[in-house]
């Protein structure tokens, strides 16, 4: 590969200590367990999985809102996993985040102008307030809001408009990489498409890379170049988005895809589904061996004992015994 990845995550682990009580047995949730992947410049990497699979934790660990337990996060060749304080702040400017809930992620007591200006002040980007204000107006136009919205408060906006404010705030420091954590799941269907189109257009104009986290597979497939599928903290399959969608290798990916309700009555009513038995196991007591072995229709005895290693199959990476020789 000639191009260098903008973000390169290797063997990342994020654990949480959930021990209750002073003398209780130590309990650890392995929210992200040994995940590796690359994101190229100008690329969208989609991360899908069901709730509790660790996708949000992974996104937050990458922008260092959580401390990783071990592993490396290389951003443009520098490992930021261990950085703290000032050194880390340098990279924070290049990596921004758009949050899931546009109602909770904007301070209700700040005006839109103040919200978008704040990151510029923190990172010392412009010298005068006039320059900052000018930039805010520019950003508001980019995200499809009006310049006179600058003095208003978040409460005066709808969910879709608030998400646009969140996007403007992320863009304020000219980042190279944005983690979008379920940016559309709190929005109405007719508004979701507006935000998706806006994100795609901004990417085209500014050459950004996205890590796009969502549980809505159809939207993820639409926006992403590559897709990673997570289950119980593990990346079970990863590859080109069309490829993964049309020829899933991992049994979990197959089941997840077959569970999408297709908006077409002939297909939806005729579709033979693979309905998974059972539920997602608790991450505190994950099953031994492959995390999916308890629900997998193709599991063999070996799956319950050994943890499958990620292996390359064609241009795909998949962690499943079926493909090990």
């Amino acid at each position: 590969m000639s191009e260098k990845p903008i973000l390169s995550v290797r063997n990342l682990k994020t654990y949480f200590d959930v021990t209750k009580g002073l003398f209780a047995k130590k309990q650890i949730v392995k929210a992200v367990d040994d995940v590796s992947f690359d994101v190229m410049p100008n690329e969208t990497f989609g991360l899908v999985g069901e709730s509790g699979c660790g996708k949000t934790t992974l996104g937050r660990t990458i922008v260092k809102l959580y401390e990783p337990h071990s592993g490396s996060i290389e951003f443009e060749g520098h490992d930021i996993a261990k950085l703290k304080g000032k050194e880390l702040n340098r990279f924070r400017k290049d990596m921004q985040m758009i949050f899931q809930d546009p109602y909770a992620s904007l301070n209700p007591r700040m005006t839109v102008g103040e919200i978008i200006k704040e990151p510029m002040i923190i990172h010392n980007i412009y010298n005068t307030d006039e320059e900052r204000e000018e930039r805010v107006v520019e950003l508001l136009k980019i995200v499809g809001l009006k310049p006179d919205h600058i003095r208003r408060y978040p409460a005066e906006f709808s969910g879709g408009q608030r998400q646009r404010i969140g996007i403007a705030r992320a863009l304020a420091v000219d980042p190279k990489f944005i983690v979008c954590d379920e940016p559309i799941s709190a929005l109405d269907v007719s508004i979701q498409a507006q935000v998706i189109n806006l994100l795609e257009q901004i990417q085209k104009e500014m050459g950004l890379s996205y890590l796009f986290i969502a549980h809505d597979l159809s939207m993820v497939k639409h926006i992403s170049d590559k897709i990673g599928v997570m289950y119980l903290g593990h990346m079970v399959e990863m590859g080109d988005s069309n490829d993964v969608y049309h020829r899933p290798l991992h049994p979990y990916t197959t089941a997840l895809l077959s569970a999408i309700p297709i908006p077409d009555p002939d297909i939806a009513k005729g579709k033979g589904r693979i309905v998974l038995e059972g539920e997602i196991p608790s991450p505190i007591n994950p099953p031994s061996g492959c995390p999916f072995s308890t629900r997998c229709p193709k599991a063999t005895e070996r799956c319950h004992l050994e943890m499958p290693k990620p292996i390359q199959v064609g241009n795909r990476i998949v962690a499943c015994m079926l493909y090990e020789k």
Partner: protein
Amino acid sequence: MYSIIGLLSDNGKVTEGKVIFDGQDISPSQFKSKKEYEAALEKLRGNSMAMIFQDPMTFLNPILKIGTQLIEPILNHTNCTKAEAREKALELMEKVGIPSAEKRIDQYPFEFSGGMRQRIVIAIALANNPKLIIADEPTTALDVTIQAQVLELIDELKKSSNSAIIMISHDLGVVAKLCDRIAIMYGGKIVEIGTDKDIFYDPKHPYTKGLLNCIANPEDDDDKELEPIAGSPPDLLNPPKGCPFVDRCSEAMRICKDVEPEVSTFSDTHQCACWLLHSKAVKE
């Protein structure tokens, strides 16, 4: 939907119109007092008319055993003894696919996962073989693979019982999977109604078309840009005088702003309220 089953909060009122259920007029205006209305609906709800709510986490009472909550509607509406009702409850739990029902019936809601709780909610709704089930976004709070399980369950129940289902959903995929007829609502009005095929393959109203265009269909090839509907839903405190969709409609005409659209009929099943489709509309 809360208007139909009389669950409107105090500041909501049915001002006009009728609700006829199984030949009986149950609109609030039919009754002398609020008390009488409540009493009449009490007899129907949980009996021949049942509801499945959106959020299985808040619907169940956290301090009552699952069994108690399942038995309640059976005891309320039939003459059977507690032991018989418990038998019936166990049967219901098996019907909705809850393993080891004998043990689970004495557990509390917090010991159940989201998908299992929704199964309990469905079991409660089915308790007295209702003629009508109103399901309000029954799978919205669930994960995709669990959603698939619950949809499959509702589909089976639909086929095995004789209940009619009103399914309320914003997810067109869910609707396509389960529904025979579909009504599209916007700004408090039904703007289009038809069979699943009418709506998905021959949409008439600009809003219906817009909805279908702005979702990503994973079966389609990528790259096709989504076509969002501009603007946002109207403010229902000051609804537009004419068509509720007028401010977001790309084909709006002058009449749309001032006069409510008349209903045009295309077939026995397919109707749509839009001026563009009116027989006297000028076609370009």
